[in-house]
């Protein structure tokens, strides 16, 4: 019943609007406004232009500076982020100026030069001087912005410092894993054909550098130290996006990528700064990757370097947690593997027993 009333109401409203439309059209014909050169409400349109301009600029300033700006600016937590944000805001100042200036001209001229029977438009087809000026000025301003951007880009994408911590970031539908190099400081090889339910990253245990590697499902980072992320993907393209660090790089299957940066604030620092005791850094997938793209995240934990080192030391190597994979280690490396992965004797016996039985 209620739906029926709504339908009837909508039909009635449409009928009324249509009648008004027909009546105004007929009145227009009676007045003969089709013969006049200029629409009868030319002036109204000109006024609306100015109204739009004023309200628009007011809205722009109100929303940008009216106390809401905190909600759309994520606090910066990386070294290069300070530089890119600086130039972001320089660019913002320049473009906002041009934006407001040109919109004022556009709508202002529209109002000022609205049709007037007694005036004739001025025949003004070109002015080389003006045109050179407004070709040159944007060119110079853009050159400044580009060169500054280029310098920062070179720093960001240049080689990582020698002392950077290497961490592997691995994206898959729909989550992230992180592999740390263990005590030897070197990430071992991988082979996508070795991926299985346990060895989700396809760690290739033929490489001795892989024996002490350990895997984490949260990204732990040291504060104040450069970190080099080595990025791969298992199935489709993902993107490692960390808004607080102003860092982003795609994870591409078959094409390892990298990104290095230096976190400057620990998670605790950020909790103090934002006044949010629950604050967590988040790593976001930013390349469409399937059904649960929107849920593909990982937590990033930034700690003081000492705490990070302690945490690092306490982690168990993949091989230690999964001793059955010792069978994949070549015979001549088995002993080294046992030592570097800190496999204890009883575990070895167990695993050797397992391997034997599997033959």
């Amino acid at each position, binding site marked *: 019943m209620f739906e029926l009333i709504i339908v009837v109401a909508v039909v009635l409203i449409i009928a009324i609007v249509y009648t008004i439309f027909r009546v*105004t059209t007929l009145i227009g014909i009676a007045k003969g406004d089709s013969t006049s050169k200029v629409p009868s409400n030319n002036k109204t*349109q000109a006024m609306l232009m100015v109204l739009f301009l004023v309200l*628009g600029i007011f809205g722009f300033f109100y929303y940008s500076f009216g106390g809401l700006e905190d909600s759309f600016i994520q606090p910066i937590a990386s070294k290069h982020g300070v530089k890119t944000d600086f130039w972001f805001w320089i660019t913002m100042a320049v473009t906002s100026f041009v934006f407001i200036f040109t919109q004022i001209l*556009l709508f202002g001229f529209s109002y000022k030069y609205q049709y007037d029977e007694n005036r*004739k*438009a001025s025949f003004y087809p070109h002015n080389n001087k003006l045109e050179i000026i407004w070709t040159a000025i944007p060119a110079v301003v853009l050159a400044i912005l580009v060169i500054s951007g280029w310098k920062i880009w070179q720093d960001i994408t240049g080689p990582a410092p020698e002392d950077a911590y290497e961490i592997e970031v691995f994206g898959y539908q729909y989550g992230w894993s992180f592999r740390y190099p263990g005590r030897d400081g070197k990430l071992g090889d991988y082979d996508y054909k070795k991926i299985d339910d346990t060895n989700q990253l396809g760690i290739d245990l033929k490489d001795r550098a892989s024996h002490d590697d350990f895997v984490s499902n949260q990204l732990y980072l040291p504060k104040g130290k450069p970190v080099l992320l080595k990025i791969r993907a298992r199935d489709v393209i993902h993107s490692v996006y960390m*808004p*607080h660090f102003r860092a982003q790089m795609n994870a591409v299957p078959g094409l390892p990528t990298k990104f290095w940066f230096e976190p400057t604030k620990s998670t605790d620092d950020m909790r103090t700064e934002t006044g949010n005791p629950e604050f967590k850094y988040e790593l976001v997938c930013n390349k*469409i990757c399937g059904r649960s793209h929107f849920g593909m995240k990982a937590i990033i934990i930034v700690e003081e370097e000492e705490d990070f080192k302690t945490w690092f030391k306490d982690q168990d190597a993949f091989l230690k947690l999964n001793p059955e994979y010792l069978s994949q280690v070549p015979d001549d490396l088995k002993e080294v593997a046992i030592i570097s992965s800190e496999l204890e004797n009883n575990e070895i016996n167990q695993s050797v027993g397992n391997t034997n039985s599997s033959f």
Partner: protein
Amino acid sequence: MSITDIQLEENLAHHDDHHDDHHEQSFISKYIFSTDHKMIAKQFLITGIMWAVIGGGLSIIFRLQLGFPGADLSWLKPILGEWIDAEGSIDPEFYLALVTMHGTIMVFFVLTAGLSGTFSNFLIPLQIGARDMASGFMNMLSYWMFFLSSAIMFISLFLETGPAAGGWTVYPPLSILSDAIQGSGGGMTLWLVSMVFFIASTLLGGINYIATVINMRTKGMSFSRLPLTVWAFFITAVIGLLSFPVLVAAALLLVFDRSFGTSFYLSEIFIGGEALPNIGGSPILYQHLFWFLGHPEVYIVILPALGITSEIIATNSRKPIFGYRAMIGSMLAIAFLSFIVWAHHMFVSGLNPFLGSIFMFLTLIIAVPSAVKAFNYITTLWRGNIVFTPAMLFSIGLVSFFISGGLTGIFLGNSALDINLHDTYFVVAHFHLVMGSASFFGLMAGVYHWFPKMFGRMMDKTMGYIHFWLTFVGVYLVFFPLHYIGIAGFPRRYYAFTNFDAFSTFGDLNTFVSIAAIVTFAAQFLFLFNFFNSIFRGRKAPENPWNSNTLEWTTPRNPGHGNWPGPIPTVYRWAYDYSKPGSDSDFIPQHIPLSQTPESNFPHEEELAKSEVISEDNGAHESH
């Protein structure tokens, strides 16, 4: 075209034996398999409008999801069926399909075919003084290829596994592996087939436009007298001809990878519990090939709109367009540069950072000719005598969007800043303003301006004004807030943002944007009514309702086959002699000889006027 006209035609079709005029055609050859450029233009326009309704409708569905997360949408079940689950929410995979199809439809079917297809077809012959396109048959094929492509894409919407869902850019491996997303099954196959027909349509059209502009200009219509619309369509066609074939190549390799087990784009993939054998391919190769079309494509979309705007702003400011040659020069520069900036879409794809630097420099160079165009429009308004027709309002709106959206391109073209903005809502805001809305406004401006010549009737002005203001304000309310969301780092193509602490603060703003989008979409029905009602019931149009200079306004109210009943007019001047000093009238059409307007001629034109008389005498002799 009124109802009576159609009935008349049908009657004539029944009395074939009576017709003594060879122009009279059967219903099928006049309205369906027509080779007349004006009818083909209308076919493109109406198909484009239908696609715009579908594409816009899809965006409203996903805006409902974004603006009102968790709302009960089971009332959409009659349309969406199984894609709405038991709790009444949209299936996340279907959400991605909606986003993908919205992009594909809007970019290709509405703003490429609907815009270029309509106005290049309609205006090129009329404005250069030709009887029809170089090849009417190819032109007809062009439309029917588009129709076939449309039909296939439309069918893909109804597949059980859904249409393509990997984003409108259909990046592999996602678009190859149906294990990764079900839209990459049948939906993606139909997408590829449809696009191949679409590209064939664009190429057939483009070759025709180029040939027509080069070969079929009327006497006196030199390139330096061509209206800027024709320049824009011509340059657009050249860009399309050079870039679309590359998309075919990209699509073909994608087909091979999908169906024949090749590894152009696939390497080291583990999915669905097994490692695929493919090794050595590169997904980045696809991105290079795609964006080699994809970036010129955005200029294919915007240049015709800018051409239309140039014409409308000059006419309604009653003033010559400022910097005619600079406008052509900047379009040529944009066309050239558009081919060497593509990798700015790939700054964070793993591209060599050195290449990133090169593409950053080239990208920001392209901002200069764009800036010149914006300044020239504004200067055209300066000291004009502006008539606000609905077409003029839409043109001014276009310039406003072109500036707002263009400026944010300066952020995104800067690779260092792009790191944090890439694939966020900042990008969404940027291209929806500069390319989507600006180009859409160009389409609307064109429809309002040339409707009288298309259908011989006027559209209702008042409804046009209401339509403009609702749409103009609406578009800003939809897309301006997205910049703020983007600065906060919201990723694109997210079904919901509730999983993230960093993004959970914008719920209200998203609701606001969705409401604005719904109102803006609803306002388009006003246009639809006005358009279709005016075709049949609009007031009869005068031959030249806007007092415009270009040749199309010298044709009769309903130009027939061949456009001009008598000889094609000769052109004696450029298209922008508005408010010429000394002249009583504030416009002098292109076909008026200089020798007839001694009061307003400039000194160098006096010389031309003398030679004009001689050549006309020659012409008279030849015809005897």
